[in-house]
């Protein structure tokens, strides 16, 4: 067996074992179907949710629309968090004054669990896209900010000295030295932020928006459709994983500092 095949087998071991356990539990009648539907039932529900024609069932064919809605919200919130978090984190990491200025504000806000923002967001933005985007951005901001800050603080002083003696101005040094040197930490922050974005997306969509993967899960609970809940969970797991890989891939494509230091 080649190294690649071996690695693949190892990485699939746990998912397959889980699937097997699930089979045993539901098929053996150990757990009643309304609590844990069988894999077959979930597969059918999923197949209908994704590929079915509209009208075949309550959720048939809704996947594409839900995915588009959720993806848009995640990307919007995540982008907002990145656009604010990276520059602010880098500034705070390099400039003691900025760090002192924002330390209490950011530290205080972070101490508030993200879910606390939900009532306020609903009052401010009503039920809908903006509440979800706000929650996602709020939650994703902190890991992105914190990792950018740490990355900026950890840049070896000798690199800035080397840059200065080679005639690189401070402004150019931001792009030539600070950003690439902090890149590994920035990437860690973005990946954590992306992960948390999906968590808060579902939270935001639980509040009664008509579409989105989180909305489907909540809706299915009210109709007692446990199979659809499981379909939603599995899809979010898969899409979240794909998003993470795409994020890393995009960063590696765009920045050679990401390509070479990861």
């Amino acid at each position, binding site marked *: 067996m080649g190294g690649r095949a071996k690695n693949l087998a190892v990485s699939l071991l746990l998912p397959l074992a889980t699937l097997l356990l699930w089979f045993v539990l539901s098929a053996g009648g150990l757990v009643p179907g309304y609590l844990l539907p069988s894999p077959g039932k979930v597969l059918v529900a999923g197949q209908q949710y994704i590929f079915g024609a509209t009208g075949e069932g309550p959720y048939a064919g809704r996947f594409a629309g839900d995915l588009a809605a959720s993806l848009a919200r995640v990307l919007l919130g995540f982008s907002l968090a990145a656009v604010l978090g990276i520059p602010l984190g880098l500034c705070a990491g390099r400039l003691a004054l900025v760090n002192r200025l924002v330390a209490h504000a950011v530290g205080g806000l972070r101490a508030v669990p993200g879910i606390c923002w939900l009532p306020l967001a609903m009052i401010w933005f009503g039920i809908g896209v903006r509440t979800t985007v706000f929650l996602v951005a709020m939650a994703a901001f902190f890991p992105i900010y914190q990792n950018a800050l740490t990355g900026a603080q950890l840049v*070896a002083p*000798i*690199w800035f*000295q*080397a*840059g*200065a*003696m*080679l*005639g*690189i*101005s401070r402004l*150019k040094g931001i792009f*030539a*030295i600070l950003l*690439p*040197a902090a*890149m590994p930490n920035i990437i860690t922050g973005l990946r954590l932020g992306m992960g948390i974005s999906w968590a808060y997306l579902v939270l935001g969509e639980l509040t009664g928006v008509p579409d989105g993967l989180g909305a489907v899960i909540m809706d299915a609970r009210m109709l007692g459709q446990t199979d659809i809940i499981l379909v939603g969970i599995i899809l979010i797991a898969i899409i979240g994983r794909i998003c993470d890989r795409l994020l890393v891939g995009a960063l590696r494509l765009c920045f*050679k*500092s990401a390509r*070479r*230091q990861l």
Partner: protein
Amino acid sequence: MTSSERAVATTENGMSRAILEISGLHHRFVHNGDSRLVLHDLSLAVRRGELVCLIGRSGCGKSTLLKIVAGFLTPAAGECRLDGHLISRPGPDRCVVFQEDALFPWLTVRENIGFGLTGRQWPRVKLDREVERFLDLVGLGEYGEHLPRTLSGGMKQRVALARVLIREPQILLMDEPFGALDAQAREEMQELLLRLVRQRQQTILFVTHDVQEAVVIADRVLLLDPGSGAIREEMQVGLDRPRDRNDVRFHACCARLHQWLRV
């Protein structure tokens, strides 16, 4: 003779004028409340094209002096002048080869060497040709696309040397650049350095622990004395180049420097 008189004397006994002039330099470090005077009324001068070695016990302030000349540190008192201009901050007229690895790990060897040229509005072709030339000069022609982490210590220092030589600094500051290499690699690097810098009349202030190294490369050796915090001894190495490490006079020079360090 006080150290400032010595600085003047060294400028006068040579043929060319001093390019680096340091006079009355003081520097102290404050650490946990108590302050320690590291440099005390230190003066020295380096002539254009001269290779000066600075030796001294560990912790006597050699790196501190180099950092002040590089502009990374501001002295408590005294001044450094390069070609008559007061040194106040880092600049490409004074480039440093550090003892530790200071290459940019996210850039290839080629990009590291070309880094200092990015500010110039040169056409791409000219830039590439210049980088290629220096790549060959330091004998790394085949390693252009390698990342620093895949290089040995000696190769890294070659890159470090190329990336500062390409900027054509007025003075090259070298802080124990070969200190981390084994004896074989160190001798190779010393030869390479001499080959590269002698023909271009590069001025160098070179810090080292290694007495042999000083005698192999230096025109003049200075002793930085930890007690007084100033230059206490000076020796002109009058040996012909290339220098023979087995020569009696070579050994005599080494013995003298050893003697300095022991006192």
